[in-house]
């Protein structure tokens, strides 16, 4: 009987295993292979295109090559975009959830209103926001209704950038970042286990000092200076994405808050907690799994972003570019299939760094339970 069950199970699952194996993992492998070739150029669309193994040239070119500057700016854009979207959508969503958690009048109505933008397609919301953020309309003329000067900020077409850094010093910056992470972990451990925290603090300090003193000697990532930063023109896109997704994070948090028993809130009130300290010490720590899911979902959305940018600033806007758009243009407009594949793999790896720790921890949790 058990054997029969097992055979049935295998039979039922095998079509999906085969299909997923082929069309998901097989194609990821194939993409990776293509990224290691030189498929592209004039004869790229021939019936039997020439594909020579080229090692990691495409990757090296993208990160350090003379012509990879556009991609590098897109990558920097994606990082700023993710960070700002996470902070904005989680911040606004949390705030709305806290407001609605106190059960004001019309709570159900507001919940629907805030969640509604989620249901729009990015093309629709992109078009709406493009109009809203146009230089002489929408948001910019709002102050005129109050008799004030209109805003002049060009949401989608500014050219300045802030928080700039030199790509040449990539290695130095990476070492600083690692050192900062080590120091933060070490300091957090310090209160509990001062011994163990030294294991983190000492390498952290050493790396920091090394980068500070020896930074000049480190190999440069590029042969010339190349500054990248947060382009002000992406601000409008970030705003639109936050608008679209904060209702979603609100719904996640609201579900979490509603799941906390009233007794806990009462107990906290009697223990002397204010509303703010209730959320800070009780409610938010308890919905930590929700914060983690929100971070993962939102960082994915920001890494995959394509249509909203396409609708708001068009595909060729160098200021507001994004690796996903770049991948599309490189592959299908420049017919540089190998380099497009390399961009795809880079995006895939970045996404992996977000999702793999999450999968591992949730798998462990499930295993831990009886």
């Amino acid at each position: 009987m058990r054997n029969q069950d097992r055979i049935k199970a295998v039979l039922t699952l095998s079509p999906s295993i085969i299909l997923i194996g082929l069309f998901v993992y097989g194609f990821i492998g194939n993409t990776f292979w293509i990224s290691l070739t030189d498929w592209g150029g004039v004869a790229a669309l021939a019936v039997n295109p020439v594909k020579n193994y080229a090692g990691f040239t495409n990757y090296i070119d993208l990160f350090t090559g003379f012509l990879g500057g556009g991609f590098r700016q897109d990558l920097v854009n994606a990082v700023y975009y993710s960070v700002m979207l996470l902070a904005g959508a989680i911040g606004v969503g949390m705030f709305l959830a806290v407001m609605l958690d106190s059960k004001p009048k019309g709570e159900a109505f507001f919940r629907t209103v805030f969640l509604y933008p989620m249901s729009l397609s990015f093309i629709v919301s992109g078009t709406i926001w493009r109009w809203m953020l146009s230089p002489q309309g929408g948001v910019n003329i709002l102050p005129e209704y109050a008799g004030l000067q209109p805003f002049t900020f060009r949401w989608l077409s500014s050219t300045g950038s802030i928080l700039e850094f030199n790509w040449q010093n990539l290695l130095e910056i990476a070492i600083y970042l690692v050192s900062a992470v080590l120091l933060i972990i070490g300091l957090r451990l310090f209160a509990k286990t001062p011994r163990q925290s030294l294991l983190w603090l000492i390498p952290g300090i050493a790396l920091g000092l090394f980068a500070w003193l020896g930074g000049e000697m480190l190999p440069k990532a590029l042969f010339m200076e190349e500054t990248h930063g947060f382009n002000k023109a992406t601000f409008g896109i970030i705003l639109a994405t936050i608008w679209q997704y904060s209702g979603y994070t609100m719904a996640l948090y609201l579900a979490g808050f509603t799941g906390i028993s009233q007794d806990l809130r009462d107990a906290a009130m009697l223990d002397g907690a204010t509303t703010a300290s209730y959320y800070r010490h009780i409610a938010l720590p308890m919905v930590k799994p929700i914060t983690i899911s929100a971070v993962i979902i939102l960082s994915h959305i920001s890494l995959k972003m394509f249509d909203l940018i396409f609708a708001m600033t068009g595909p060729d806007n160098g200021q507001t570019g994004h690796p996903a758009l770049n991948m599309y243009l490189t592959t299908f407009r420049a017919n540089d299939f190998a380099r497009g594949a390399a961009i795809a793999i880079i995006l895939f790896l970045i996404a992996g760094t977000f999702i793999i720790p999450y999968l591992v921890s949730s798998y462990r949790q499930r295993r831990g339970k009886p």
Partner: protein
Amino acid sequence: MAQVELKKVIKRFGSTEVVHGVDLFIEDDEFIVLVGPSGCGKSTVLRMIAGLESISSGEICINGQSVNEVAPKDRNVAMVFQNYALYPHMSVYENIAFSLKMAKESKSQIKDKVQQAAEILELTPYLQRKPAELSGGQRQRVAMGRAIVRQPAVFLFDEPLSNLDAQLRTQMRMELKKLHLKMKTTTIYVTHDQIEAMTLADRIVILKDGYIQQIGSPIELFERPVNRFVARFIGNPPTNIIPASLHKHDGRTSVRMGTLSLPVVSPPAGADSQQVLVGIRPDIIKTGDGLHSLPDEWQVQAEVIVSEVLGGQSLLEFSAGGTTMIAELEGRVQARPGEMITLGFDLSRLLFFDPRTEEAIY
């Protein structure tokens, strides 16, 4: 150390009134138990004292100061909830320390106080565990620890033991009693377990449908209940309530239940052949050795319906003169159904109630 006073406190949820003008004065260091059937408003009264529920009308005073407008955290009361309401993401230490942390006490002070509380409650080995890693009894103690650590003026307990098994409940009841003797803090304790009420309380408040039925010491409630409800509610098994009539003859009064007629020692006021309800507590019925102290005319022949032996005592359901009653007899009385047995009633402890108002008549 605090007195708590409720003056004509009314609570309405929407248009339904669930607490109807409760008046109650609680002395310093008193242990008050609120009992009553489910849904009678016990938790609501407690939550109003804590400030978790607003009051619709009336006034609550702590130490003579009206606290109607005072936030829960400023009332200096601590509450233990039925499901403990421990913070699941915090260790036992952090749970107990939370109120002190909110009060911005210094780290070393918090440490001292938490350790002291943990010592009293024997929680020291568990301080680093999360609530999920504790047994029911340990969680209960953490909830207590959280309450005692801030040395509040008033303790409020809402059925704190009802999630524990019978043995643990008895043990924790003793602990609670000891704790109260040690800490001497005014305590208001809600339960629907009358054994808890009888053993813990200085005074018991009996609630029914949002009305106070009676306030008094456990013995007072047991011996002189003010109405049929209280007589039935306090005592287990409950008082037998039997329709009867009182007859006066030659200056002596007798009570007739069915064909059974028994003399009345201290007759209540009332006319001849007045209809009453007689309350007979199961423990005033005796048999065997217990009969020696009772006059012959207080004894009757009864037919056994069923008997149960509970260790040192026995429960006997019997029929006498056409009425069925339950007796709680000393010793192991093994009687077969249908057997005749001699039973005596301690008639000095009969209770009488007006059949219409169900109030006691003395």
